[in-house]
């Protein structure tokens, strides 16, 4: 019986395979208690393997808090995170771009490792829920075989890079940002300069300023396409924004550079990363996003830091090499473009056509949006959709930040046929981008931080709105609703016309689920402004609040007055007065149903809220890097058990070099990956200076590395392998001790 590792060996890029093997080794080390739980947690998060609600082994069942006795007992995969507790696997889909084959593999994984559902996130990722940590290495291998990674999907690193789903087909874009998003994703992935952040880092690309597009103003780093004439030549480039973000302290991004050329794009991203790693907050995770650093320094000083940093960024051919390949980034439609011409139209087509079809810049082609309720679709739908995509659009599939699936390059003549087919598989609902197309984060369904049921509320609102959609005035139909389960804004409630985020209030001796109402956020102009919080309302009153708000908006708005302006003109005081009747809290005895959340029959409690992993663990760079060395040492041990002595030599040598690198990087971040360079730097900085010397053994352990590096064995026998393993272990221990002596207490 072969394993996925064996079966896919030839299809997985070596670097990706190594990262997954390392993670698998870390899983074993953690099980044996040889890897610190916080270090493992951060490693796990950087592989996109996230915790889920109730993974601390406790759940309130509506009557009492029950212990969940998982079979692995006390074994944890992070602080208060039990090993066997189901987790979430986040999968990065850069700019949401998918091929049909990738969609099929994702569907297989949902079928075999999760609950059969694929969930689209507000960052164009796919999330699988209820995944066991032991299944994740094979899951990652199957993804890697089709060029998908989970690397740095969570944790304090560069998250999925997003872009508008219309990039490349839009009428208004300056140019297609997709290849630039792709290049930056590949450049920053697992880059040395993004390993020491105090918090996550989100990047987005936009092709135009006017539409919502890539929402660059709410991102840590936002790139807005521009062209400029330089020396008589039209040059492509970007306005660079930095320090935007939502969350509890939403901030609009500031302009770091009005125009950076495409040659400057990756160096600037690297320099910003280095400044963030060097000066960003590490201890207080609540102040660790780059927006706080930008605020603290001021944009001018931050810009000066970036400019200084740019001078120290080492030369890297990758900074511009991707420009030569831009021409390769083309789209292959499955069919020739052809106008829609007299074909009989199926029932429901007109409504769908009005809301779900966008005519591309390319004549004869359209982009269609498949309205995916709550961002969920089944594995079976995934397979069926991949087949439809192959026949109609080829590999031109994208996921949107509004949690929908988008098919691009549909020949207009095929629109009725493709509508029939997507409707057949349950993905043909009209109303994409309208008030029924509500965005929601996972909330209390699966998120440890969820306070109220964002998905329960969304499902309820969606059901009610769909029933009335044809009765709603256009002004209401066009509104956007976004719902978050807590203040952290994963549902992006700040940039909706009408946003809600979960909180709770007390009535008597009971807690009642509430939603804070946030009004007047702007989706257009790249998330141009954020909404106003106007008051918290019991969750069960939210449908009435929505109706009251929209009715009054329709009744009072002046011609062409949009929702943002109406809210602004009405004022917070008046809006609060309007909400007041709905804010009254009934007692438990009067209305017990108010004390249960939407879609949940249990009596509401906040006892299930756990510690979020969103921020990752703040673990020192050294701890992360030395963990890689220990994983390689573990691989060497496995090879020894298998009698594969050449592999022992290879892994043990790698382990020593990685350990040396971990120490070198505490003083010299840019040491790079070259073994010779790492050994030289280690020798000059730590051996020649005697910093690495043991009190009794002096430089003996360091010389194990030099010996192996300078005199590779001609042949590797069992005795040599055993000795090398032991020496490697001693060398790693020596590095640990040295690091503590040199740099003080290890943060872990």
């Amino acid at each position: 019986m072969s394993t996925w590792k064996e079966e896919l060996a030839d299809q997985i890029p070596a670097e990706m395979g190594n990262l997954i093997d390392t993670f698998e080794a870390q899983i074993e080390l953690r099980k044996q208690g040889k890897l610190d739980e916080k270090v493992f947690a951060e490693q796990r998060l950087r592989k996109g393997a996230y915790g889920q609600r109730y993974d601390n082994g406790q759940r309130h069942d509506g009557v009492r808090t029950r212990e969940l006795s998982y079979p692995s007992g006390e074994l944890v995969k992070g602080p208060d995170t039990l090993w066997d507790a189901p987790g979430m696997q986040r999968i990065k889909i850069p700019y949401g771009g998918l091929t049909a084959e990738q969609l099929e593999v994702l569907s297989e994984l949902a079928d075999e490792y999760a609950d059969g559902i694929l969930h689209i996130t507000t960052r164009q990722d796919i999330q699988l829920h209820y995944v066991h940590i032991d299944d994740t290495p094979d899951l990652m291998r199957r993804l890697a075989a089709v060029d998908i990674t989970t690397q740095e999907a969570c944790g304090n690193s560069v998250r999925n890079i997003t872009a508008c789903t219309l990039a490349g087909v839009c009428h208004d874009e300056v140019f297609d940002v997709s290849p630039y998003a792709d290049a930056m994703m590949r450049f920053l992935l697992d880059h040395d300069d993004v390993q020491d952040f105090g918090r996550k880092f989100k990047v987005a690309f936009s092709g135009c300023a006017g539409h919502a597009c890539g929402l660059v103003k709410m991102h840590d780093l936002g790139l807005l396409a521009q062209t400029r004439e330089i020396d008589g030549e039209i040059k492509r480039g970007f306005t660079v924004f930095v320090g935007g973000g939502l969350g509890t302290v939403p901030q609009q991004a500031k302009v770091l550079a009005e125009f950076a050329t495409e040659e400057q794009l990756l160096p600037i991203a690297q320099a910003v990363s280095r400044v963030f790693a060097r000066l960003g907050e590490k201890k207080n995770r609540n102040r660790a996003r780059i927006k706080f650093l930008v605020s603290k320094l001021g944009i001018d000083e931050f810009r000066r830091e970036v400019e200084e940093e740019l001078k120290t960024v080492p030369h890297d051919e990758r900074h511009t090499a991707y420009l030569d390949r831009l021409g390769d980034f083309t789209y292959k439609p499955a069919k020739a473009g052809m106008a829609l011409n007299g074909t009989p139209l199926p029932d429901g087509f007109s409504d769908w056509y009005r809301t779900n079809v966008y005519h591309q810049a390319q004549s004869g082609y359209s982009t269609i949006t498949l309205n995916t309720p709550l961002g969920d679709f089944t594995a079976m739908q995934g397979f069926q959709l991949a087949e439809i995509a192959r026949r109609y659009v080829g590999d031109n599939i994208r996921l949107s930040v509004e949690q929908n699936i988008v098919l691009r390059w549909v020949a207009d003549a095929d629109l009725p046929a493709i509508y029939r087919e997507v409707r057949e598989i349950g993905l043909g609902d009209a109303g994409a981008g309208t008030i029924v197309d509500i965005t929601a984060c996972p909330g209390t369904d699966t998120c440890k931080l969820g306070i109220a049921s964002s998905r329960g509320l969304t499902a309820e609102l969606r059901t009610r709105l769909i029933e009335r959609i044809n009765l709603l005035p256009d002004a209401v139909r066009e509104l956007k609703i976004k719902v978050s389960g807590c203040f952290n804004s994963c549902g992006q409630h700040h940039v909706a016309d009408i946003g809600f985020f979960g909180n709770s209030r007390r009535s008597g001796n009971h807690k009642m689920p509430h939603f804070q109402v946030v009004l007047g956020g702007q989706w257009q102009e790249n998330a141009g402004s954020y909404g106003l919080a106007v008051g918290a309302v019991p969750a069960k009153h939210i449908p009435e609040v929505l109706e009251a708000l929209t009715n009054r908006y329709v009744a009072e708005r002046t011609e062409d007055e949009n929702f943002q302006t109406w809210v602004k003109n009405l004022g917070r005081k008046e809006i609060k007065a309007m909400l007041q009747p709905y804010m009254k809290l009934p007692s438990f005895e009067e209305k017990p149903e108010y004390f249960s959340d939407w879609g949940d029959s249990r009596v509401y409690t906040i006892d299930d809220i756990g510690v979020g992993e969103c921020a990752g663990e703040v673990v020192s760079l050294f701890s992360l890097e030395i963990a890689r060395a220990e994983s390689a040492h573990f691989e060497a041990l496995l090879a020894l058990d298998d009698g594969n002595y050449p592999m022992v030599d290879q892994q043990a040598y790698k382990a020593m070099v990685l350990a040396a690198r971990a120490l070198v990087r505490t003083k010299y971040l840019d040491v790079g990956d070259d073994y010779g360079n790492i050994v030289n730097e280690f020798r000059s900085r730590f051996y020649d200076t005697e910093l690495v010397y043991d009190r009794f053994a002096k430089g003996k352990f360091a010389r194990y590395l030099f010996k192996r590096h300078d005199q590779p064995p001609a042949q590797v026998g069992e005795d040599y392998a055993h000795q090398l393993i032991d020496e490697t272990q001693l060398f790693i221990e020596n590095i640990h001790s040295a690091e503590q002596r040199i740099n003080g207490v290890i943060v872990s």
Partner: protein
Amino acid sequence: MTIVPNRLGVKFNLKREPALAAADIVPIFQRWIQEHTVDGMLIDVIDYKHVPEGPGVILIADEGDYAFDFSDGQIGLHYIRKRNLPGDMAGALILAFRLALGAALCLESEAPGDIDFDFSHAKISFLDRQNYRNEPARFAAAQDELSAILADIYGGDVALERAYDDPRFSFALRVSAQTEGVDGQKLLARLSARAVSVQ
């Protein structure tokens, strides 16, 4: 053929669409957690009824999930065993059948007369594409052994057919007992007598 898949599902369909709505299943499953009505370390209830032909409402457990399921356009009780499967195929199938059947009977008792399962038919899913590609050859290799085990489970001959022709879908079989009107309680008693380990 003796390889036991990583995950094994058994689904019994309802004879007709019930008056009970999917939303009504959420409080039932929540109560099952409180009262520990079905086997397993029960964790949570997740609601996917908004997804067409999806898993509906799932009662998540450590060892296996129970779903009031809408897949294939048929409403039923779908049990998917995820962990701790017995090492032999007969043991694995008996376990999955017994737990699916037990949960289905519990659901029937929640709405007598309305929730009414057809126990003469079942769908078995082998959620393990490494060992069970959905191909005719795999079916041919497995058919005799599975037929024998299932005949033992039902106490009489069964007919087997592949549920899906598409090789991308999971390897799944439709089982039809040759005896119509299989009594769920009797079948459960039969399986309980054969059960080796419960969880």
